[in-house]
């Protein structure tokens, strides 16, 4: 049986659906269509769905790995598998990855606000407001973040209905001819869709806080499915609404679709979309801050709250520094590579280590299985 935190700190297994799904949604949903379009063009939806489906395998591997972790999370597993020094070092690397993740979300969202809403507002100010919000939520603990994730899945989902308006302009011929690309094109689009699914790896940190976690895997799979079906809707809507030339010239196609929505009493409906993204980036950022603080707490003598503030302070410094467009691009690229390596390289590697370790030695945890 896998490790589980005390009952008062855990959440119901079905909430894993919302946690997994919500940790995967982020700023990448705004612009992934124009990035994937450079590869498999009108067939890119195939890559988006395939990468999404591959996440089922990643979830399986994560559950396998975590089931054998002493304390049910990656922090303990690292130390358990690689010893104190190397384990702590790897925890540090994972912590850096989490910082990168939250910085990328915040910096890109600041850029959206600066471009579309308030060009005069400096990045540090947007970053500070959101970081204070995230820290406040993360300070409430995992159960608060879970509750928030639940509601922040439901609220923005209402906006999906508004896709009906841009879809009145849809040209379904944009998808033709189907399956007209070579494997490397699909691979390129798949690689560019990975940021959509990044965030599921946070399960490596909050797994012990899921009640009956070993049996909760079906909810994780539902969460993953929810994500790729949603991204499928966004991909198909964007490719029906824009032709390839337009997509390649768009910066944020998801937001661009809302620009055709117009009411006599409301000139800029796209503002709803822009600020709706607060609901979308808040849960993953809070989860990341909570997880980063947890890593610091277990790897350093710092207390939980101090760890949270230290993490937030570092994020703030990076966000303030990443003012220019080159830095934003750099953050996005590093984050994408790091996420791809983690999901498709490091997690299978960990599973292999656990497997080998179980096979050649006695089981790592006496009470495992």
């Amino acid at each position: 049986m896998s490790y589980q935190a005390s009952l008062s700190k855990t959440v119901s297994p079905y909430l894993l659906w919302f946690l997994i799904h919500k940790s995967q949604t982020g700023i990448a949903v705004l612009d992934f269509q124009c990035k994937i379009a450079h590869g498999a063009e009108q067939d890119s939806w195939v890559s988006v769905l395939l990468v999404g489906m591959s996440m089922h395998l990643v979830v399986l591997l994560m559950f396998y790995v975590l089931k054998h972790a002493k304390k049910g999370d990656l922090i303990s597993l690292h130390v358990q598998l690689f010893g104190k020094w190397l384990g702590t070092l790897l925890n540090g690397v994972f912590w850096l990855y989490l910082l990168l993740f939250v910085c990328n979300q915040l910096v890109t969202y600041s850029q959206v606000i600066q471009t579309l809403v308030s060009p005069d507002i400096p990045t540090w100010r947007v970053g500070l407001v959101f970081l204070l919000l995230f820290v406040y939520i993360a300070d409430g603990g995992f159960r608060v973040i879970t509750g928030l994730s639940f509601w922040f899945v439901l609220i923005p989902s209402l906006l999906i209905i508004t896709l009906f308006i841009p879809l009145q302009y849809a040209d379904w011929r944009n998808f033709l001819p189907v399956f007209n690309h070579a494997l490397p094109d699909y691979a390129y689009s798949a690689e560019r869709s990975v940021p959509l699914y990044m965030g599921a790896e946070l399960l490596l940190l909050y797994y012990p806080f899921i009640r009956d976690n070993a049996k909760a895997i079906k909810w994780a799979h539902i969460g993953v499915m929810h994500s790729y079906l949603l991204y499928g809707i966004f991909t198909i809507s964007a490719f029906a609404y824009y032709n390839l030339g337009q997509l390649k010239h768009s910066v944020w196609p998801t937001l661009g679709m809302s620009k055709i929505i117009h009411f006599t009493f409301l000139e800029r409906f796209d503002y709803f979309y822009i600020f709706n993204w607060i609901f979308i980036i808040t849960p993953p950022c809070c989860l990341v801050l909570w997880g980063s603080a947890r890593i610091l707490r277990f790897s350093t003598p710092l207390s939980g709250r101090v760890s949270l503030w230290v993490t937030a302070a570092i994020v703030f410094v990076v966000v303030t520094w990443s003012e220019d467009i080159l830095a934003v691009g750099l953050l996005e690229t590093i984050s994408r590579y790091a996420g791809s390596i983690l999901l498709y390289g490091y997690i299978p590697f960990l599973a292999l280590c656990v497997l080998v370790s179980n096979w050649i030695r006695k089981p790592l945890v006496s009470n495992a299985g």
Partner: protein
Amino acid sequence: MRTKLLLGMLTLSAMLLAGCGNANIVNRIRILVAVGFDRDGELCKGTVAYPNYIHRKGSLAIMKGTGNDPKLILQHLSLQTPRKIRYNKINTIVFSREIAAGGITRLIDTVARDPSLGGNVLLAVSSCSAEKVINSLDRQELENSPYNVVQQNIRDGNVPLSNLYLFLHDYYSEGKDPSMPSLRLDAERQIEVDGYALFKKERLRLVLDTPEMTLFEILLGKKVKGEVPFTYKGELFVMSIHHGSTRLSANMRAVPAAARFEVRLNGGIRSFQGNRIAKNLFEVDDLAASIEHQLMEKLVALLKKIQANGIDSVGVGEEFRSVDRHWNAAEFYRNVYPAMKFDVRVKATLKNSGAGE
């Protein structure tokens, strides 16, 4: 401690968020609604209309500026005014034919990149100078703006569906050329739609007159409505199209390649002749056949006219692209499109219409 922290955070956030405020009082700023661009030597002249709420109770006033780029024109306008200029509510952009013929890439790029403008903005070409079109709005009510004139006609089916989004869609398409309405001033200096301007990518190539505009709308098949005149037994009739559809299909195997348009129209005939269909039901087939034949000839003639000008405003290339796995735009428009045959089939269904005799 926790309450203090929360209060501190709320106060700090409120202070920081106050910086996001963009206080603009509606009657103290100049909210541009229509812009016209003309060539002015090496520069571009911009004429803008805005509602003046202070001196004119909301009727429109005019300003003019010059510059190399829309942003520089705005800066020039700003230098002339004691009030802030905001252009988020621009709903009409008019280009003079001279500018449109020379290419509007620079202007369109600036407009397309601007996050302040929505996809519903009307783009139009003016037969006279754009300055005259915008000047005609001076002291007019907002209701008379070119946007409302064109929108009303789009709803009634007199003008094909057109806006900034659709223009950019066709502009960036490999297999279709963009188009937009053409405006002019009539003898009473009222703005009217006088045709439909067809572009070869960013350059104006051909302007259709109003009867051709209705036919063009039928070919596009997006919202088929309008009035189609035809003759029957030497008399003039007008078919009012209530609804219809056009299906475009590509025949790649034919030599030369052919594009087939299957047009289905439902409508009635109203004219001073009274309710002719009610008088003699046996005439319905003859009338329908007459419409179908005449309309087919007119549609083929229009397609050939567009083809002869080297443009593909209907999107025949887009249809071929969607069915040909090895489609190449350059090769298609060099070798295939100029020799293409058009097979137009019209099916008209007439309803008994007209209430009086």
